[in-house]
């Protein structure tokens, strides 16, 4: 498959860029932060995203989506990364959607995917229990009862957990690790909202004797330990697309600043020390572009390389976004340290995106394992 966009995808990308610049610039994020908005995103903008179909791009038509594919969704996420727009796209549409799609029964898909696609429901996943991402460390227990299960345990870093309607939680059962879809208002389930440095939200969620019916089990009886990483890979690639947008925006703003800022009577972009570092960053970003495109295609093609590509994209985008945001602050100098200047928002977002779904250390290890060394 050629690593280029088709006309439809290009149009989608352009219209997303226009929409986000207009409706969700970085000022919006600042406003959400300064007004201590409990929701964490702009409901009106989210509603417009739903209306434009963004929540159904990756969902098959038979489940109420548009079946447009991940390459298309990736273009929107890239533009979202540029304006740092907050929404439950990654938590609910991408990760929630992928888990349901990969593991759910036909009946569950019919209900949940269409609710996700039409924006009526926010479905997030509670997979992590440790401060370092590792979805296979599961101490949360689901014990079988007469009519279903009782769930006990603690989950960490549940993206948008504070506003989710349904939580997909991983728990250990007699059949290994399985997933359960649990309404967030269930008795015994408590959500502790945590504000993150990028001004988004994740929650610690505790399950204390939460009773659920058998139908809460996502999918059939099989162990989900194999499919969870696959759904996460979809989310990792989508997040990489978002990070790719952020790094490009931070980089372009930095280049513009280098051309504009005068010191010693010349624009500072004239100094070769900075030029070489900028050129190096350009190369690193170009690598990410190729990778993300290839990885997005791998989802659409259900490629056997998906896992390796997901780890490569997430690790590399994590590395490069960290490099670019650090260099951006340094090149902006004192101005970059001020809250008035927007560049700092990218630095903060970079650190959260880095840790979400595994940082580069996690993915170096995983890539090596997948490659047999």
């Amino acid at each position: 498959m050629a690593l280029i966009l088709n006309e439809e995808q290009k149009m989608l990308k352009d219209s997303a860029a226009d929409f986000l610049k207009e409706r969700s610039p970085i000022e919006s994020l600042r406003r959400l932060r300064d007004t201590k908005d409990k929701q964490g995103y702009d409901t009106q903008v989210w509603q417009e995203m739903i209306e434009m179909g963004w929540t159904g791009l990756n969902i098959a038509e038979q489940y109420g989506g548009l079946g447009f594919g991940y390459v298309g969704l990736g273009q929107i996420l890239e533009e979202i990364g540029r304006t740092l727009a907050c929404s439950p796209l990654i938590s609910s549409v991408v990760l929630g959607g992928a888990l349901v799609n990969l593991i759910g029964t036909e009946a569950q898909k019919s209900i949940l995917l269409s609710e996700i696609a039409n924006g009526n429901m926010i479905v997030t996943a509670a997979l992590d229990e440790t401060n370092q991402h590792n979805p296979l460390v599961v101490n949360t227990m689901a014990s079988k009862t007469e009519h279903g299960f009782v769930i006990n345990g603690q989950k960490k870093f549940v993206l948008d957990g504070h506003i989710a309607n349904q939580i997909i939680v991983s728990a250990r059962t007699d059949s290994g690790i399985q997933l359960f879809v649990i309404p967030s208002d269930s008795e015994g389930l408590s959500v502790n909202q945590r504000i993150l440095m990028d001004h988004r939200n994740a929650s610690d969620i505790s399950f204390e004797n939460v009773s659920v019916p058998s139908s809460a089990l996502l999918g059939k009886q099989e162990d989900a330990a194999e499919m969870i990483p696959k759904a996460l890979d979809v989310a990792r690639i989508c997040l990489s697309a978002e990070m790719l947008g952020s790094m490009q925006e931070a980089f372009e703003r930095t280049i513009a600043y280098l051309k504009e800022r005068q010191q010693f009577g010349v624009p500072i972009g004239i100094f070769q020390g900075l030029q070489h570092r900028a050129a190096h960053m350009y190369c690193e970003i170009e690598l990410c572009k190729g990778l993300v495109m290839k990885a997005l295609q791998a989802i659409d093609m259900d490629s056997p390389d998906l896992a390796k590509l997901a780890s490569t994209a997430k690790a590399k985008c994590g590395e490069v976004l960290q490099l670019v945001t650090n260099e951006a602050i340094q090149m902006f100098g004192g101005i970059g340290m001020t809250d008035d200047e927007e560049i700092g928002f990218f630095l903060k977002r970079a650190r959260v995106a880095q840790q979400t779904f595994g940082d580069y250390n996690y993915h170096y290890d995983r890539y090596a394992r997948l490659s047999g060394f």
Partner: protein
Amino acid sequence: MQSATVKVDLDMFREETRAWLEENCPPSQRTTPPRGLEDCYAGGRKPYFHSEEQKIWFERMRDKGWTAPTWPKAYGGGGLTPQQAKVLKEEMKNLNCRVPLWSFGLMMLGPAILHYGTEEQKQKYIREIVNGEVWWCQGYSEPGSGSDLASLQTSAEDKGDHFLVNGQKVWTSYADRSDMIFCLVRTDKDAPKHKGISFLLIDMELEGVSVRPIKLISGKSPFCETFFENVKVPKENLVGTLNEGWSIAKNLLTHERTSIGIVTEEQPLHEYAIEKLGLVDGKLNDPYNRMQIAKWSMDRDALSSSIAKTIDEAKSGTQPGAKSSFFKYYSSELNKRRYELAMSVGGTDALEWGEDYMDGKLARDMCRTKANSIEGGTSEIQLNIISKRILGLPSK
């Protein structure tokens, strides 16, 4: 070589000092404090003490002149020899005594006035600094002059009996709480840029001075923008020779660089890593972070050996020259790496950013470290200085 007499005198001084400190330093002033202003007494016209014991401790030290141990007694200082001051420092460290007064006056302005000031200025300002009566801030940078400090535009026009000051300073630390500011101002617009600069002391209460705090990405506001609109400054507030303020500034900047050149660790990085990652078979449960932390720790150890070596050489008469640029550059970069590693080790726990500053302290501190390689001369400027002054590489 020390003579035997000096040695005996020093030993006696050490014993007396220890006894005095033990008797006079209140218990609450003997715990390691957070850095800087958050917990130290800073003096000023509107003094604020965090506790009664902090006040007692400050006053007792002030009365001995030990807020500025080596400054002359004639101006209220402690009059100690460098050897004695070292002993005092060591004994304070042994007992965990906090510094009684933390101020820019002590760290920055005082040495400049002692070097360049008139007798009157010394009598007035040095005494005030020792006694913590005035809170000083520094006015060097301007919005258009970051690395190119000498391009500053704030002007001081000679109006016969006073200077008329107009312009704007930025990165003035705690200007919103300061009583006075020491400034670089342009007193000759026609001279080459390094030549027309003077060093001026300005009272923040004068008409025409206004201040606006700058909020940083860490969420703190330790710095301000300071504006001067037709501010009339008395002529006697000039320090040093007219139009020769640049040499005072350079001297002070080297001083600042040296004081920045130290990596502080409230908790050693590897201990924090053990806490967050745990040990398996005695090794951190993440081989990559483990190696990075080992590498970082080695660099920290190496830097401290290198600083110690330079100090020993200086004692034996070798001038450190532009080496302060090396220390400034390396320690800034090292400190940034330290916090990146802490973030990596902390994982998702480290991402919290509560409403209160201490809630999510690590993330905020990490943001703060990004300024290390900008303030007091950027890393790029330090590298320029090294390549030109130490390596002798050619300039355009």
